[in-house]
């Protein structure tokens, strides 16, 4: 499995009237060919900014790459010119946005919008592009595309519009599809349909997906690997099973504990106390320390490096340091870990391997 995209030590700031907002503070991750990587985190954790910076869709006037690189096909995307980026956008990397109600142009027919990337990036005739466009609409489940080609976005429902946006994103068989909370604005039944469609599509066209969400239920459904973001950094990354059943970072514990569960009859849903860090003046050590009941003294002084848990699983918390005191995660997390082979709570017998 080759790496299709490598983000290395990416740092990005926004220049605002209040000062420099350090939105991304050293993010590194790889995207493998054909996999779905979910990036989860609360609002303001930097997940959307990370993906928008891959596409270079952030306003050039107010955002600035401080350091790091985004390697795609041997090119560093942070260094490409506008013109070079235009050739990559929509062709090699494409994107699905959060709100389908506003992401289609209201005064342009659906057909034109679907055909646009095809005509832009492929040298084919209009008639051929129309055929391709209709096939795409059929593939994403828009019935009778011949008639619907001439219609405008307001004549479609939210779910249908998101299907159309997906069709546009897939128009040129992109190598990477970035889905920025594609189901957040939809109601639950439509959410399920769209997720089903995306999984379906990944089987048909061999594309890698970066899936941004704050919904852990969705993550379990679609992702192969998960990166947890907090305060402009990735704090834990691993396979879905590793993140769900052997989480190491206190923030991941918090996230998982605040998920409603079917089997645990808790009276009140857990919520992580406090508010996200102010990235105008980011905290010195572990950004989550101030909200964490497991914080150590060193968390306030020095940011933790990534500790290796397994070949695929890394977490940035001082709790994994050999000299760290032994800390038991919350009860619900221990319950989860009991079912994970390789976790230190597995059947109470096997010890921790950290």
């Amino acid at each position, binding site marked *: 499995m080759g790496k299709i995209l490598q983000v290395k030590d990416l740092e990005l700031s926004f220049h605002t009237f209040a000062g420099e907002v350090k939105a991304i503070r050293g993010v590194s991750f790889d995207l493998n060919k054909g996999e779905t990587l979910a990036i989860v985190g609360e609002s303001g954790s930097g997940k959307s900014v990370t993906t928008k910076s891959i*596409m270079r*869709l952030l306003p050039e006037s107010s955002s600035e790459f401080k350091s790091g690189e985004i390697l795609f096909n041997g090119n560093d995307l942070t260094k490409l010119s*506008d*013109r070079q980026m*235009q*050739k*990559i*956008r*929509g*062709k090699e990397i*494409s*994107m699905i*946005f959060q*709100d389908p109600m*506003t*992401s*289609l*142009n*209201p*005064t*342009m027919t659906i057909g034109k919008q679907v055909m*646009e*990337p095809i005509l*832009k*990036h492929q040298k084919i005739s209009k008639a051929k592009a129309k055929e391709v466009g209709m096939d795409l609409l059929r593939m994403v489940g828009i019935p009778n595309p011949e008639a619907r080609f001439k219609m*405008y976005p*307001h*004549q479609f429902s939210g779910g249908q519009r998101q299907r159309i*946006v997906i069709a*546009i*994103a897939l128009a040129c068989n992109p190598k990477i599809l970035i889905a920025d909370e594609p189901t957040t604005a939809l109601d639950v039944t439509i959410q399920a349909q769209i997720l089903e469609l995306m999984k379906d599509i990944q089987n048909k066209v061999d594309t890698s997906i970066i899936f941004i969400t704050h919904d852990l239920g969705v993550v379990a459904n679609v992702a192969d690997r998960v990166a947890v973001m907090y305060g402009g950094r990735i704090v834990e990354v691993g396979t879905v099973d590793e993140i769900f059943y052997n989480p190491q970072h206190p923030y991941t514990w918090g996230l998982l504990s605040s998920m409603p569960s079917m089997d645990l009859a808790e009276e009140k849903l857990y919520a992580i106390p406090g508010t996200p860090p102010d990235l105008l003046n980011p905290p010195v050590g572990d950004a989550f320390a101030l909200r964490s009941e497991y914080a150590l003294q060193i968390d306030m002084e020095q940011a933790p490096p990534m500790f290796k848990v397994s070949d695929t699983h890394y977490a940035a918390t001082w709790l994994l340091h050999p000299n760290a005191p032994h800390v038991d995660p919350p009860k619900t997390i221990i319950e989860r870990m009991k079912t994970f082979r390789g976790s230190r709570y597995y059947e109470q017998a096997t010890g921790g391997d950290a």
Partner: protein
Amino acid sequence: MVKYIGKRLVYMFLTMFLIATATFFLMQTLPGSPIASYNKLNETQRAIVEKKYGIDKPKPVQYAIYMKNLAKGDLGTSFVFKGKSVNDLLATRVKPSFILGAQAMVFGTLIGILLGMLAALKQNTIWDYGSTFFAILGVSIPSFVFASLLQYWVASQWHLLPVGLWNDGWKSSILPSIALAMGPLALSARFIRTEMIEVLSSDYITLAKAKGANGFEIAFKHAFRNALIPLVTVLGPVAAGIVTGSLVVEQIFAIPGIGEQFVSSIMTNDFATIMGTTLFFSALLIFIIFIVDLLYGIIDPRIRLSGGKG
């Protein structure tokens, strides 16, 4: 769509009727009468003149007669230009006014749109500030000041164009058109700038960028039509502004147009001509607003459909 247009036509007709009625009675409250200046007339002569023009009859009767003639398309006879019908009087004056108005409208909105686009695309640069400055000038300086300035500098100091009158072909129309166009120009520049900036930050523009569209395609294929929608709604008031502006500007440049006629007819209490010009201006405006509404539907597909059903 046909049903919608039919409905609109009925309303337009009703509006005209109300305007005619209101103007007729309001005019009766004007001080003086068309023959007040004939002070050499004795009682008998005055009675003869009043009888000739039909102003000896009671007001409601006069109104009934006027409306009857109006229904036939007859605007009556001028009190001042002896024996000339108001229809003929207006007919000779429509052309200069129409040319000025149309040129001002087209030139004003087009240049305004260009300036607005430039300001929005080069936001917070010298282009933006320059065009905003220009737009503020256009809004705040009344057209008669512009007209006088143009007349003084371009015509009488630099001798580039005629000072006034309508006897030098198209050249005569340039300065008055520019003076009239300043208002629409400033207004459309401001509207387009605000709207373009708003549209350029919308999700579908980000999606267009994500498709790989370049700056030109984003501005003209995606943003422009959407930014145009609110401007279309103010085209009606803009046209009204040009009509009222023409009253003053035609006077300043001594253009033999309808606006100039309107002003002089008020000066001379020429009732029939005042009525005629008022009704002409009203009809024109109502028609323009109707056209603008149709245009709105063409530009915005969301309006088109609901309009068709309604």
